[in-house]
């Protein structure tokens, strides 16, 4: 599903996103399971905070990693994450 640029995103219900020192990576935890989100996936997910819109996340990443054209990849990942239920449009 295509995500509107003005949609505010938050982490999905029953998921928890955190940094794991033992894995040296960000992970997403859910009932009886874990997804490892190394590198750019973690960088994108850590900006999903219930306040930033899709456009904010892209802008912040482009600021943090200047010179790269990230927009297409970021939106593709966010749509993938949204499809999986890892993130959702902020509720109420």
């Amino acid at each position: 599903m295509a995500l509107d640029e003005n949609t505010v995103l938050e982490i999905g219900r029953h998921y928890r996103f955190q940094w794991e020192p033992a894995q040296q990576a960000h992970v997403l935890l859910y009932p009886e399971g874990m997804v490892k989100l190394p590198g750019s996936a973690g960088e994108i997910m850590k900006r999903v905070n219930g306040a930033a819109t899709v456009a904010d996340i892209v802008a912040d990443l482009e600021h943090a990693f200047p010179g790269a054209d990230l927009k297409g990849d970021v939106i593709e990942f966010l749509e993938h994450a949204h499809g999986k239920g890892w993130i959702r449009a902020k509720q109420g």
Partner: protein
Amino acid sequence: MEKAGFVQNRANPPLWLLAELTYKCPLHCVFCYNPVDYATYGAELSTGDWLRVLRQGRELGATQLGFSGGEPLMRDDLETLVCEARRLGYYSNLITSGVGLNEQRIAAFKEGGLDHIQVSFQDSTREMNDFLSSTRTFELKRKVAKLVKKYDYPMVLNVVLHRLNIDHVQQILEMAEQLEAEYVELANTQYYGWAYVNRDQLLPSREQLQRAEEITNRFRERVGNRMKIYFVVPDYYENRPKACMNGWGAVFLTVTADGLALPCHEARMLPGLTFPNVREHELGWIWNDSPGFNAYRGDAWMKEPCRSCPEKEKDYGGCRCQAYMLTGEAANADPVCDKSPYHKLVTDAVERAQSPRPHAEAKPVILFRDDKNSRSLAGREKTPVA
């Protein structure tokens, strides 16, 4: 910590810490996987012991924490442990029958940061009858289901299937639907602990299994995405073994009520291995260095047919405890595998299950999991019975 340029030859960190907080349980399920001699074990760990275990497990890298038992609600310090689990960054799962869950407790769990609750439908025949006549058990489950939903947990219902209840799978699924379960696990009994003692009474026939699967599939089509249903067949009906625990000492660490650290719930039955107690050792040493946790890591311990088997990295030779229970030797291939020279032990049990009643030689009395039976089974000589 690892230093740059120095590769430590160590196991991967455990991902799962299962805290079997107590063997106390208000129920007496005939399929319980708990050790049959639990009533003879020593004192339960204290709150302080558990807090230390949680901290050490987290330092090792465990992310998933299961509170189990017995019935974990029998521990009145569960609220304390839940809070500490959240503070440490675990994703915590409560595995419960729901007996003993009330609003005050679930509110404290939510507040403390418990992430997930799995409610089992603990059918013993008496409770099944209870349910079929819509009496007490169902009322209890309805109360628990309401609380679970009210506190915004997903409603996950686990039902253990066996010969005596599998023909009721339609009613069980309808019950799950009435409880508005979002996930239903129809898990056939695995034959360990009490279930192994009662195996001939519990193993369903092939026909029963097929019928139950058909009913489940039809139900799935009707409810669609509203309810996700998993159906797990008993491994006795497979011809390749399960990848037990994803490999010995690979991801899973159990700590028992009396403090023993084990690579799986059943491992304390294995002869010749001593498992460390968390009262005496740090989890780091236990996981990385203790002989018990290294006994069946990797594949150096394997014998034929596993050693040269192309599938050994897929199933790790199956379950060491099942190999021991059935063949008397834990390093043998799990006899569920049709490459095992002992596979006939499994097919014989399956064959016996095809007769309309439990086999004539089967023990006529089913053993309920209670303290009295546990003490009497503990006195029995510990030889494997095939």
